[in-house]
């Protein structure tokens, strides 16, 4: 089970605090996995008592905008654009709110990473970074799929540069494997457009394992050196944007994309995990 308690002496409205926590959680605790099991008790709470704020300071707040209305560019008056009920969108505009948003997200990421470093039986801290041309959701799901793979995690424990298992985990990501005409539009993740590299924690040159579907000549000695380190990053490049043919390019088709990046943190899976959990209840 994951539990977390965060306290600050800044002055923040309850609704803003809720927004900050949910935003930070999406980029921190919801991006870690040790064993793929979601607990019945996971809770992270945050408290803000304003004790350090000057008396004159207004509480940090965020603005909530209603997406069902928009401001007409001509008249300036709100116009209803959709009858469908939609969730209100929160816009963080105030500089104090922006600053706290950044502080809390980084703080919660640091806390979440401590949990991964203490994974039961873990010997490695693994960052999985996935870049997609199309969708943050795609990138997040692929990262999650890799982070949950027992075979990827045992290979990391055994210091085996088994990139085939990483590809396998990408391939069965929900939404990729199941993509159909009405499924998620992430069906352009193709083996021949996928690349995988190990990024060493010491800042030395990356080890490319697969480049656009083509396996690279892997220096096993170098791979072993990288996998001996406690910290390791796996970089996956999906290149899943639209395929633009030469003819389309001549017609002026745009190929530029905004890369979306998701990061997940996980650990390896060792014998010790089984030992700890084989008799946890008793």
């Amino acid at each position, binding site marked *: *089970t*994951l*539990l*977390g*308690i*965060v*306290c*600050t*002496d*800044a002055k923040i409205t*309850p609704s803003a605090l*809720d927004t900050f*926590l*949910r935003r930070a*959680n999406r980029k921190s*605790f*919801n991006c*870690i996995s*040790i*064993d793929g*099991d*979601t*607990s*019945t*008790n*996971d*809770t*992270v*709470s*945050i*408290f*803000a*008592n*304003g*004790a*350090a*704020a000057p008396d004159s*300071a207004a*509480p940090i707040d965020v603005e909530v905008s209603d997406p069902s209305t928009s401001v007409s560019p001509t008249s300036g008056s709100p116009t209803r654009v959709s009858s469908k009920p939609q969730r209100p969108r929160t816009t963080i505009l105030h500089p*104090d709110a922006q*600053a*706290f948003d950044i*502080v809390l997200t980084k703080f*919660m990421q640091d*806390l979440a990473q*401590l*949990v*991964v*470093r*203490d*994974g*039961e039986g873990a010997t490695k801290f693994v960052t999985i970074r996935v870049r997609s041309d199309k969708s943050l959701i795609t990138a997040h799901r692929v990262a999650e799929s890799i982070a949950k793979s027992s075979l990827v995690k045992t290979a990391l424990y055994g210091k085996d540069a088994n990139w085939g298992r990483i590809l396998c985990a990408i391939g069965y990501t929900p939404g990729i494997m199941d993509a159909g005409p009405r499924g998620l539009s992430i069906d352009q993740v193709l083996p021949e457009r996928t690349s995988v590299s190990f990024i060493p924690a010491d800042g030395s040159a990356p080890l490319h394992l697969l480049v656009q579907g083509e396996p690279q000549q892997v220096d096993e000695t170098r791979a072993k050196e990288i996998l001996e380190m406690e910290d390791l990053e796996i970089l996956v490049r999906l290149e899943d944007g639209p395929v633009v043919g030469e003819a389309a390019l001549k017609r002026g088709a745009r190929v530029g994309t905004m890369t979306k990046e998701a990061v997940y943190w996980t650990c390896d899976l060792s*014998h010790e995990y*089984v*030992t*700890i*959990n*084989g*008799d946890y*209840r008793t």
Partner: protein
Amino acid sequence: FHTDLQQIRHYSAPGDRSIPAAKQKYVPTSGTYPKGFQAGTAHAGVKASNTKYDDITMVVSDRPAAAAAVFTRNVFKAAPVVVSRASLSARNRAGQGFRGVVVNSGCANAVTGKVGLEHAALMARETDKCFDSEDPSEPPQTLVMSTGVIGQILPISKITDAIPKAHAALGDSHDHWLNAAKAICTTDTFPKLLTRTFTLPSHPETEYRIAGTTKGAGMIHPNMA
């Protein structure tokens, strides 16, 4: 088949809860803690085998504080999740603040039916009493968390006996916070505690503080909202 019972290894946490040498670097030796917050711990012996270590933790504010939380999306939400979520919803709707949180380790109070809900609510009420502000007609101003074994009933009297002791032990030193971080642990090998200071653009001369503790080592794949 050849069955070899020697292959079965049993786990036993270090008796002295010593921190592995490789993990020492993650445990802070000092910190800058937010004003108005205190942490306290006490021993309840929630897990019968724990005869020594604190397993009740309280983190409180000296004044009503804004509060928020994210909870597991697992359908089988534990009793403290259900109770805390209801308290947050009710008090925030009414514009009421919170005083803090009480946590027990050793038993998750999950899949424990109605009695589990009663126990979680009682933990919150008993903590409220420490602030001399218990009002049964109002939702509790304390959030509740539990962690440990699923499917076992909380030894609630041990916990309610320990809550005033945890309150009496409140303090704002680094050791108080570190003890709180230790007391929420289960199979964790080291306490997880961080502090930071920051400023805000509107009052750059004012230093604000943020502190946090977390626990978790197994059954970790959070999906909270």
